[in-house]
């Protein structure tokens, strides 16, 4: 009897009936399973942290370009590798040791740091209390920049100490010391995901507040601001760095010094 071609209506009705009767799975606790999966670290894929919604950031292309740069410099078959990454694949490319390789191409200092100003001007104009180290080895900054966070809501002040006796010029920053200050937040988990195996991260107390000392091989790092954005200016390679928070302001001191020297410099911030 089914030899007879079904009419359109008969076929529609039959399809609807089949759809109602299929032996579908009936998941009931999928949410629990998914939640458990989301709690698992995504082993060996630290760059996924960059893509996680927790760390959603706007200028993704700039970020991809920077990471592609890492690839280009680190991987022999660079072109293919970069393409792989840009398609958000490419699993073995970003091994931690590769992070250190492009260190020689120091990121131009004060990129998007804002406009050149003076420390006094910055103190008058910024939306937070700008501090500077009173440490004798650093003296006064050679350059002071005042700019805005990418979302335009927060002031950023950058102090540049180009060459100082006893503090080697960092290959990453291109200067002896760099201080960046802004209202922000340090996310511990984030640093852990971005640093390679040769980078150590240590909890420290700075001027009574919590901080992190990051030492060893250069690491990729970035901050989120109060809106949860990641700043692509800070997503770059960096050398030894002390990060801490003081009165709602985040300070970053980047200098190739020992941890104790960094803490001493931090203690001199006025």
């Amino acid at each position, binding site marked *: 009897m089914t030899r007879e071609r079904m009419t359109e209506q008969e*076929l529609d009705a039959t399809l609807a*009936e089949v759809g109602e009767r299929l032996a579908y*799975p009936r998941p*009931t606790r*999928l949410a629990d399973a*998914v939640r458990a999966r989301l709690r698992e670290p995504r082993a060996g894929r630290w760059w996924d942290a960059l893509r*996680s*919604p927790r760390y959603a950031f706007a200028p993704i292309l700039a970020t991809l370009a920077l990471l592609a740069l890492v690839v280009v410099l680190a991987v022999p078959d660079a072109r293919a590798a970069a393409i792989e990454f840009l398609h958000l694949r490419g699993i073995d490319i970003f091994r931690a040791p590769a992070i250190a390789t492009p260190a020689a191409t120091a990121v131009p200092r004060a990129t998007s740091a804002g406009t050149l100003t003076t420390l006094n001007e910055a103190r008058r104009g910024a939306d937070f209390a700008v501090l500077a180290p009173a440490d004798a080895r650093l003296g006064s900054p050679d350059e002071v920049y005042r700019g805005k966070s990418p979302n335009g809501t927060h002031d950023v002040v950058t102090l540049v100490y180009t060459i100082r006796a006893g503090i080697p010029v960092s290959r990453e920053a291109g200067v002896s010391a760099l201080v960046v200050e802004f209202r922000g*937040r*340090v996310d511990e988990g984030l640093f852990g995901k971005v640093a390679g195996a040769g980078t150590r991260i240590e909890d420290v107390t700075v001027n009574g507040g919590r901080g992190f000392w990051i030492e060893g091989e250069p690491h990729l790092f970035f901050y989120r601001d109060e809106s949860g954005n990641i700043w692509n200016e800070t997503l770059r390679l960096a050398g030894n760095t002390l990060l801490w928070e003081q009165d709602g302001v985040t300070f970053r001191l980047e200098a190739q010094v020992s941890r104790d020297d960094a803490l001493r410099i931090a203690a001199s911030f006025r």
Partner: protein
Amino acid sequence: MDAVKRVRTDSVEGRPTEDAVLVERSKNGDQDAYAELVTRYQAIAARTAYVITGTAADAEDVAQDAFVKAYYALDRFRTGAPFRPWLLRIVANEAINRRKAAGRRPTVGLSIALDRASGDTALSPEASALAHERREVVLMALRRMREEDRLVIAYRYFFDLSELEMADALGVARGTVKSRLSRAIARLRAAMEGDELHDA
């Protein structure tokens, strides 16, 4: 500097929170909000996966993987867009990939849960038997069709998606949905006739 603390901003009491709100919260790392989205769409996700894979166990795995992938892809989700078709697209891709990885047998084991010829009590025994046979013929044809064709048929006839949702879920222009569907139906008919010739 402590771990991020978030303030829950629940909607007006008693009203289901809108998808868009849950999505935004999920984007900010609120896994409770995401769990709510999973609960809301687990059934259609698993059903969609099943239409492609043809086995319930695979379909559940696919749905789970798809929800995890969707979570990590939320930063690419356009704010304000409907969540369901976006999710289904990820589910369907995941299911098709799994079929490919498994070596893609020509037919799938899609089956009907419980279907007796006498089940249609409103029908005469003859009409009921005829309806049963028609379902069998359609099912056999569906098993042999391309995943993409099965999917478009399922969206329209099984899950009753709107044309707009279908376009989003299939990743095609809205004007393309009708032609996709009619081509799929034409191929379904061809497959049915093939079945019948075979049986004859």
